[in-house]
């Protein structure tokens, strides 16, 4: 079954747990900003998973590469995509809060709907 061992397994487990924590945070919220953070934690977990998988190469000694460059490149691409999306989401959030405070309804930031 498992052919991964030692610390690799540990990192793998951590990555999966990070994803789970992120999903939990995304569902629970309750502030929109926290949901954005949770999404970032999910993506960090996924990227970590990718990095760990890329690291498999060095263990096996099949090539003289330190790690799988394809996966690492994908992580870089993913990072940029994630930060772009986060920036956009934050801009939307800021605008949302601005308009809701301008409507002068006494605070109580509007909640986003629970998931879906």
């Amino acid at each position, binding site marked *: 079954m498992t052919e991964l061992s030692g610390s690799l397994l540990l990192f793998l487990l951590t990555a999966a747990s990070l994803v789970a924590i992120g999903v939990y945070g995304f569902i629970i919220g309750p502030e929109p900003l926290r949901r954005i953070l949770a999404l970032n*934690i999910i993506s960090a977990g996924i990227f970590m998973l990718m*990095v760990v998988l890329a*690291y498999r190469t060095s263990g096996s000694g099949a090539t003289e590469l330190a790690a799988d460059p394809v996966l690492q490149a994908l992580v870089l691409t993913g*990072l940029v995509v994630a930060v772009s999306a986060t920036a956009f989401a934050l801009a939307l959030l*800021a605008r949302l809060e601005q308009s809701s405070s301008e409507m002068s309804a006494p605070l109580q930031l509007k909640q986003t709907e629970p998931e879906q």
Partner: protein
Amino acid sequence: MSLLLFDTLLCGLLLALALASVLSRQLSHAVILYIAFGLLMAMAWARLAAPDLALAEAAIGAGLTGALCFTALARQGQLALSPVVSWQQRCWPALFVLVTLSGLLLALLQIPASPGPLPALVLQELAGSGVSHPVTAVLLNFRSWDTLLELLVLLLALLGTLQVAPAPVRQNSWALSRSWSQLLAPLIILLAGYVLWAGASQPGGAFQAGALLAAGAVVLKLNKQLNWLAWRNIWVRFFAVAGLGVFVIAALAAWLLQGLAAEPVWLRWPPQLAKYIILLIETFATLAIAITLTLLVVAEQPDTPLSLETQDSAGGSDD
């Protein structure tokens, strides 16, 4: 053994920070915890033989995202404690997440220890790619279409952000930080140039360099300098777009060059020119990334006293 101990500690901390960030009652604490989490994550990646990713994560994942979140926090004004989530509300999501997690873990355990065929293939073809660093080769040659689209994603995020950007927040810059940042700026530019250049053979490349540049620019911008750096400036717009533009034009040129051949291939660089083309693309991409990221963080509507009605029509690229 000590390495395993270190790993365990690292993983434990990562999990703890993430969990704390999700659970903390104060939003500002959550953001700070998240930034710490990002930095620690960079460390973990460095440990996992991914130094260039670690650099990127530190700059983008922790640094920029953190800056973005802080800006967002600053906009929110005074913060109340988050509302309490009752046990019932917590219970079902937690159960759901645990079930999913166990399923995921079961799947992960079946992943074979040996990597797929691609790393060997990359190594085999690296010589023809024009660069010696495999990650850069993948990014800008083997899978350059991904990178092109990714630059587009970045640009798009900027377009969207400019469109909805809220009113600026009045804050005074701090004298000490202003002088300090002026000192910092040239250093950062130097460092970024080096990282860019190194990308061909060592860890580094356009994204990291761009992110570094952006970090410097953000610091300066937040201290009310670099006022020319705004979307209404045509040169800024030009360079923000040029990253993609040069990429596409280079690709078109390379395509037309092969036009004499029977079946031209999209995005194939002629082997002897590959290094220069990639460097050219990277340079412009770095600038574009830097400008875009900076504008993303400090995005503000250009017109000052802004009423929401005018904003609807003024969004996007109108100047």
